[in-house]
């Protein structure tokens, strides 16, 4: 007899209306330890949870990227949606595609260059292979009311029509029992999630559609309103700052190799790192300026702060989030164990 453990956030917990559906996060290793197949584990979890649920399976040995292109350890390898004890047999499960890390890939996607130094030999996952998915447009799974979207970083209830953003770093904090922040996204996050990098099998875009320095939103002053009023669960800013610092210390240039999100630009400025101002498109500057990120201010020389100083002051350096509320994830995500 063995035990399958996972963490579980009940529907309704979080900022504003809270999580619109239940959320369960499970490690691939926890499934393997029980001798279960992934499918069997998902079935067990969905039967335990009464109501709509998003279930994400993590490979903590793998790596992924944030939407602005920062490489981080820990990746979602499977996303599922369940409701009323069932997972839809056609639309309920989607697997992320393993992407082989080669010199050619890094040439096409220079934001991955730090992988060789920071996470050598680790598997890379982001979104699914578009050829293998049934739903035509989004990287989404759904069963009944439950919708798990954008490669498992956004959940929705399609009946109440409420949604919540679950950026990858917040989920990684939750599955590891670290601190998390409940908040409303606000304008800065709304703009920032559009400052993507070109990625094959990306979490949102299947092809290398938008390059560093561009905006996927391309909505000028409207970008700050697009996702500004949505509850989210994110990592504390010092965690985000640490990962951005890791890749900046490897020499990545924001706006050229790394996305030009407010978080990346703010940390780069504090560190005194080079920013490719010219490569950031005018359309992206319009969106950045709408949330108070001005090129002329970033071009002013500043006293470079140390890594330790930036991490200690991350809450004031990185802009964004409305009404943030920091908690230990273990106070909100319940650890569930079920005998197998």
């Amino acid at each position, binding site marked *: 007899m063995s035990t399958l453990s996972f963490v579980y956030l009940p529907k309704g917990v979080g900022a504003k209306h809270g999580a619109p559906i239940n959320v369960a996060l499970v490690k691939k290793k926890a499934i393997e330890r029980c001798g279960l197949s992934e499918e069997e584990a998902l079935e067990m979890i969905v039967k335990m949870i009464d109501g709509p649920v998003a279930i994400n399976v993590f490979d903590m040995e793998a790596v992924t990227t944030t939407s602005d292109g920062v490489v981080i350890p820990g990746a979602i390898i499977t996303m599922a949606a369940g409701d*009323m004890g069932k997972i839809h047999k056609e639309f309920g499960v989607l697997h992320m595609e393993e992407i082989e890390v080669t010199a050619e890939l890094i040439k096409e996607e220079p934001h991955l260059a730090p992988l060789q130094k920071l996470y050598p030999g680790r598997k890379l996952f982001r979104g699914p292979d578009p050829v293998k998915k049934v739903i*035509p*447009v989004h990287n989404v799974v*759904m069963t*009944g009311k439950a919708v798990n979207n954008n490669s498992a970083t956004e959940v929705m209830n399609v*009946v109440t029509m409420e949604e919540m953003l679950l950026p990858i770093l917040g989920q990684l904090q939750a599955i590891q029992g670290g601190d998390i922040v409940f908040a409303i996204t606000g304008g800065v996050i709304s703009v920032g999630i559009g400052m993507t990098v070109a990625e094959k099998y990306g979490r949102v875009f299947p092809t290398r559609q938008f390059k560093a320095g561009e905006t996927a939103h391309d909505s000028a002053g409207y970008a700050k309103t697009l996702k500004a009023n949505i509850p989210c669960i994110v990592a504390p800013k010092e965690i985000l700052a640490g990962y951005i610092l890791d890749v900046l210390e490897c020499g990545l240039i924001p706006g050229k190799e790394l996305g030009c999100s407010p978080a990346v630009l703010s940390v780069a400025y504090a560190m005194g790192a080079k920013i490719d101002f010219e490569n950031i498109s005018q359309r992206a500057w319009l969106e950045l300026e709408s949330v108070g990120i001005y090129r002329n201010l970033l071009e002013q020389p500043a006293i470079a702060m140390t890594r330790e100083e930036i991490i200690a002051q991350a809450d004031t350096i990185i802009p964004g989030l409305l009404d943030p509320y920091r908690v230990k994830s273990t106070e909100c995500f319940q650890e569930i164990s079920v005998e197998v």
Partner: protein
Amino acid sequence: MRLMHTSLPEFKHKIKGAVIKQSPNKSIKIKGLENLKSAKMQSLRTGRIEESVEAIAANKETVKVEVVVMPRVPETMHTVIVKGYDEKGNPTKAIMEVINIIHPTEEVELEGFAEIEDRRPTIGRH
């Protein structure tokens, strides 16, 4: 019959008739086709649905039958046509756009049903 099509009014007539055939006192409601003014419905499936409606209506305890038509693939892509007209009703300009719509899957309609018989073929085998 496999490659034939039935008109929308005839489809509705056949579905309603399948209930009345069992009992004129049982009610029937068709949901999900409200926006369709004209359409040709797959004849093979029209016949099968007619049979299903009859089977449900034949149950003595059943007094009300609902037939819900919903997207099989829960993210659908639609063309949106924005049209303008002048005072005389003549067309001024039209713009075509597209929108993707996410729908709930069938579980939302099946809540509470213990006996569910899934007669659908897998996607692609229609």
